[in-house]
């Protein structure tokens, strides 16, 4: 039963991932990302990480995607303007690289499988995660806060610039 549910969500996740990079219309790509975020939140919950699942929804789908969608809408990008391939050979090279990576990873996982694992499963609840983060991971917490601050300052500076007057416009 669990296996069936996992396969359903996994197939949807993979389809959403491929959709996120394959659609011509960038809004459809963003929408596939939304589906991907929701599916991965479900998978997190299944892996005893409810806090992360909710955090993923909140942060990834709630913030990132809205920004992305707004950007796409503001620039009013509709279908297909960027459908021409890159320089000759880039597309085949990229696909070849993807296949090689995938084959290597699949080989590793098939011939060195990782089983079910430890019997004691901890649930990543807010309390449990909080206890670890604020004691053992306090330094990374502070560093991440600094990184966020730097990002906020960067955003304010970059987004606050005046639009450039292009000739002939």
């Amino acid at each position, binding site marked *: 039963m669990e296996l069936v549910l996992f396969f359903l969500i996994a197939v949807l996740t993979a389809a959403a991932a491929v959709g996120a990079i394959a659609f011509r219309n960038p809004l459809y790509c963003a929408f596939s990302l939304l589906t991907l975020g929701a599916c991965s939140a479900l998978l997190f919950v299944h892996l005893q990480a409810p806090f992360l699942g909710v955090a993923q929804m909140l942060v990834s789908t709630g913030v990132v995607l809205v920004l992305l969608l707004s950007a796409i809408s503001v620039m009013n990008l509709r279908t297909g*303007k960027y459908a021409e391939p890159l320089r000759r050979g880039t597309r085949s090279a990229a696909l070849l690289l993807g296949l090689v990576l995938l084959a290597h990873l699949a080989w590793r996982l098939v011939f060195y499988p990782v089983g079910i694992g430890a019997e004691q499963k901890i649930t990543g609840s807010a309390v449990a995660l909080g206890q670890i983060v604020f004691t053992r991971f306090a330094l990374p917490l502070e560093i991440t806060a600094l990184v966020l601050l730097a990002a906020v300052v960067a955003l304010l500076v970059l987004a606050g610039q005046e639009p450039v007057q292009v000739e002939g416009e």
Partner: protein
Amino acid sequence: MAVPISYYLILGALLFVVGVVGVLLRRNMLVVLGAFEVAFTGVHLSWVAFAHYHGQLDGQVVVLFSLVVSVAQIGVGLALVLAFYRHVRCVDIEAADKLRW
């Protein structure tokens, strides 16, 4: 019957590869940012799967920080794309071929 972790790892690996191929293949900058997000999702899935496998929460804490940093990264990336758009009025990577304007 529980799901063996290998399946999660395969899914995470697949997502990562799809994301990398997307970054290499797409010309629209915003879709490239989205492909980054796909790759991140694959990595996060692998971290959480390993945390589940070992019965510890360290993997989940790493993913928490990684989520935060990836949000910051995409935000700044969007701001950069916006700044670029103001100059060139398109979001094609192929148009970003000068070092300065």
